[in-house]
C-alpha cells in the first residue's frame, strides 16, 4: 500500500491538535455548583466519620468494659517458687525441645490421635506439670472449645512422649510450664486492673441525702373582684429548709439521671392591709397604731369566715385568739366585715416532690461540676394558714381550691467533691419554680418558687 494512501496521522494531528472550541457559556457555573456540592459532601463525610469513630470507640470501650466485668481473677496460680522450679532449662534447650514437640506432633498426627483415644482414661494428665498448665488456661477461659483443643493437644503430646520416651517425659514437658505461666507481678497487675474495673462499674449508681436551706417566694396575680377584698400581699419571701433522698444513675459518660423524694415547704406572708386606713374608721391619732394591725375584709357565709388572701381564699376554722371581728362596715363593693388582729398572717404549703433531673457533667475531676435541669411532680401534703410567727403561730384554717398535684421545673448546677471512691459531698444551688398555679380558681394565679442550696452526702456504688 502506498504511504500516501494511509490515513496520515500527522495531518489529523496538525488539524486537531490545537483545536479550540468555546464550551457552552454556563459550563463554569455548573462546575462551581458541583464543587460546592462536593465540599458539602466532604463536610458530611467528615462529620459522619467522626460520629462513626465515636460510636466505634464507645462500642469498643463498652465491650472491653463488660468483658472485664465478667473476668474471673483466680487466686495466684504460680508462685515465684513454682516459676523458679520450672526454670532450670537453658533457653536453647527449650527451643530445641519445643521444636521437637511441634515436629513430632505434625508428623505423627494420625498416630497420636489413635493413641490418645486408646489412652483416654490414662492418668497422664494428673502429672504436676500438666495440671499447672491446665490451671493457667482457667485464667483466660472464655471459649471452652478452644481450651478443649489445647488440652487435647497437650494430652496427645504427653501420650506420644510417654509412648516413645517415657524416661524423658518430665524433662520434655517441664519447659512448657514456663510458657503459659503468669509471673507474680503480672497476677498483681491483673488483680489491680480488675479492682479498678469493678470500681468504675460500681460508680454508675449514687444515692444521697441532702438538705437545703432556701428562700421561697411566689408570683401571683388575682382577678379585680378578688383583689378588692384581699389581704395585703407581702412580696417578701420566707426562708425554710428542705430535704430528701436522691438516687442517681449514670446513663452515659457525662449524662446522669436523678430522681428521689424530697420534702419541701412553700409559703407566703401577708402584711397589714391598708384598706381601712382612712379617716372614716380611725381618728388621725389612731392611724399610726392601726398600721400594726392586720385588718382585712372577711366574708361570713354559712357560719364560716372566708378571707381572700394571696394564695387563695382562707376558710377559717374559727375566730383566732386575740382577733376582733368588726362587722357592718359600710363599704362600697367590699365585704362589710373586717378581721382585726395585731399579728401577721401566713399561708403555708407542704409538698412531697419527686423530681426527674438530668445532670450534664461539664467537669469530670475530683471536684466535678454538673449542669442540672428537669421537672418535678409536687403533691400537696400540707395546707395550713396561720396567724402569728414562730412559737406564737396559731393555726387558723386552710386555703381552698389548692391542686393536689402540681408541676415544677428545676435548673441549677452542682459541685461534687469526692471524699473517697465511695463517698462524695455535693453542693447544688437550684432554682425551682412552679409551672402551674397551685390554686385551681380562675381568680387566683399563684406560682411559688424557691431558691435553695442542696447540700448533701452521697454514696457511690
Amino acid at each position, binding site marked *: *500500500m*502506498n504511504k*500516501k*494512501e*494511509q*490515513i*496520515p*496521522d500527522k*495531518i*489529523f*494531528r496538525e*488539524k*486537531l*491538535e*490545537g*483545536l*479550540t*472550541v*468555546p*464550551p*457552552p457559556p454556563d*459550563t*463554569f457555573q*455548573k*462546575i*462551581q455548583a*458541583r*464543587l460546592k456540592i*462536593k465540599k458539602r459532601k466532604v463536610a458530611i463525610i467528615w462529620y459522619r466519620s467522626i460520629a462513626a469513630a465515636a460510636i466505634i470507640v464507645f462500642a469498643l470501650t463498652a465491650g472491653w468494659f463488660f468483658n472485664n466485668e465478667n473476668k474471673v481473677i483466680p487466686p495466684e496460680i504460680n508462685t515465684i517458687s513454682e516459676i523458679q522450679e520450672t526454670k532450670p532449662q537453658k533457653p536453647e534447650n527449650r527451643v530445641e525441645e519445643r521444636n521437637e514437640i511441634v515436629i513430632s506432633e505434625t508428623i505423627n498426627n494420625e498416630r497420636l490421635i489413635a493413641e490418645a483415644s486408646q489412652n483416654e482414661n490414662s492418668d497422664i494428665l494428673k502429672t504436676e506439670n500438666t495440671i499447672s498448665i491446665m490451671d493457667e488456661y482457667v485464667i483466660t477461659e472464655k471459649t471452652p472449645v478452644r481450651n478443649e483443643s489445647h488440652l487435647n493437644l497437650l494430652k496427645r503430646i504427653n501420650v506420644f512422649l510417654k509412648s516413645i520416651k517415657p524416661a524423658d517425659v518430665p524433662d520434655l514437658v517441664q519447659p512448657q510450664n514456663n510458657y503459659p505461666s503468669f509471673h507474680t507481678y503480672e497476677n498483681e497487675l491483673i488483680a489491680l486492673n480488675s479492682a479498678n474495673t469493678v470500681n468504675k462499674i460500681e460508680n454508675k449508681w449514687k444515692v444521697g441525702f441532702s438538705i437545703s436551706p432556701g428562700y421561697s417566694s411566689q408570683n401571683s396575680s388575682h382577678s379585680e373582684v378578688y383583689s378588692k377584698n384581699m389581704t395585703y400581699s407581702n412580696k417578701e419571701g420566707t426562708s425554710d429548709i428542705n430535704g430528701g433522698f436522691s438516687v442517681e444513675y449514670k446513663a452515659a459518660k457525662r449524662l446522669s439521671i436523678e430522681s428521689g423524694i424530697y420534702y419541701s415547704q412553700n409559703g407566703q406572708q401577708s402584711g397589714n392591709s391598708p384598706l381601712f386606713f382612712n379617716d372614716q374608721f380611725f381618728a388621725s391619732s389612731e392611724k399610726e397604731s392601726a398600721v400594726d394591725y392586720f385588718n382585712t375584709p372577711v366574708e361570713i357565709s354559712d357560719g364560716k369566715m372566708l378571707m381572700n388572701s394571696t394564695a387563695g381564699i382562707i376558710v377559717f376554722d374559727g375566730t383566732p385568739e386575740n382577733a376582733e371581728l368588726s362587722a357592718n362596715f359600710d363599704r362600697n363593693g367590699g365585704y362589710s366585715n373586717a378581721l382585726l388582729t395585731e399579728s401577721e398572717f401566713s399561708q403555708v404549703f407542704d409538698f412531697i416532690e419527686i423530681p426527674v433531673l438530668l445532670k450534664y457533667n461539664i467537669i469530670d475531676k475530683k471536684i466535678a461540676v454538673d449542669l442540672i435541669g428537669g421537672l418535678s411532680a409536687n403533691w400537696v401534703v400540707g395546707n395550713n394558714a396561720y396567724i402569728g410567727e414562730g412559737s406564737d403561730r396559731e393555726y387558723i384554717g386552710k386555703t381552698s381550691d389548692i391542686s393536689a398535684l402540681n408541676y415544677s421545673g428545676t435548673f441549677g448546677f452542682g459541685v461534687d467533691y469526692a471524699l473517697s471512691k465511695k463517698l462524695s459531698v455535693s453542693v447544688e444551688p437550684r432554682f425551682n419554680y412552679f409551672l402551674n398555679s397551685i390554686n385551681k380558681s380562675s381568680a387566683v394565679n399563684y406560682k411559688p418558687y424557691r431558691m435553695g442550696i442542696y447540700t448533701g452526702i452521697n454514696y457511690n456504688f
Partner: protein
Amino acid sequence: MEDLRKIVEDCASGNSKAQETLYNMFAPKMYGVCLRYAKDREEAEDNLQDGFVKVFTNIKKFRNEGSLEGWVRRIMVNVSLEKFRKQNLLYPVEDIGKYDSQKFSDEIIEQISADELLKVIQQLTPRYKMVFNLYVFEGMNHKEISEKMGISMGTSKSNLARARDILKRKVVELYSDVKTNSNYSA
C-alpha cells in the same frame, strides 16, 4: 509565569475568581480535547466539567513543575479513559475491507475542515477512538495504550489499524461530498 503560580495558589485556596481565570485560560483548548474523545458535544461537556472539578479539587497537588496545561490536559484524557474503562462496551467490528483500495492524498484531507475531521473521529467506536487518540494525539506507544486501556498490545495495534481504515473510508465519503458540493456551487 508568576501570575500563573499565583492563580494556582488562589485556586488551591478555593478562590472562585482564580478558578474562573484558570478555566477561561484552558477551557476552549480542553473542550477541543474532550470533543475528540467523546461521541458528541454533550458527552464532551460532561467530561470537561468532570475534568475541571478534578483540576480544582486536586490543584494543591500541582507543584508548578512542568506545564500546567499539560497537567490539565492529562486530567481531561484520564477522565475520558476512566469513563471508557467503566463502560467497557463491546462494539461490533465494522467491515472495512472494501475501502482499502480507495486512494486519497494529503490534499484530500486538507480540503476537509477540522470540524469535519472531528466528527469523523467521534463516529469511531469508543475503543477505536480511544486507541487512535492516545496513539496520535497523546503520543503513547502500544505498550502504554494497552496498560491504560487494559487491553493487549496486539489488540491495541489491530484497533489502531482498524480505526485508520474506518477513518479512511469516512474521509473518502466526506471528500466525495466536498466534491459534490463544490460542483453545486460552481
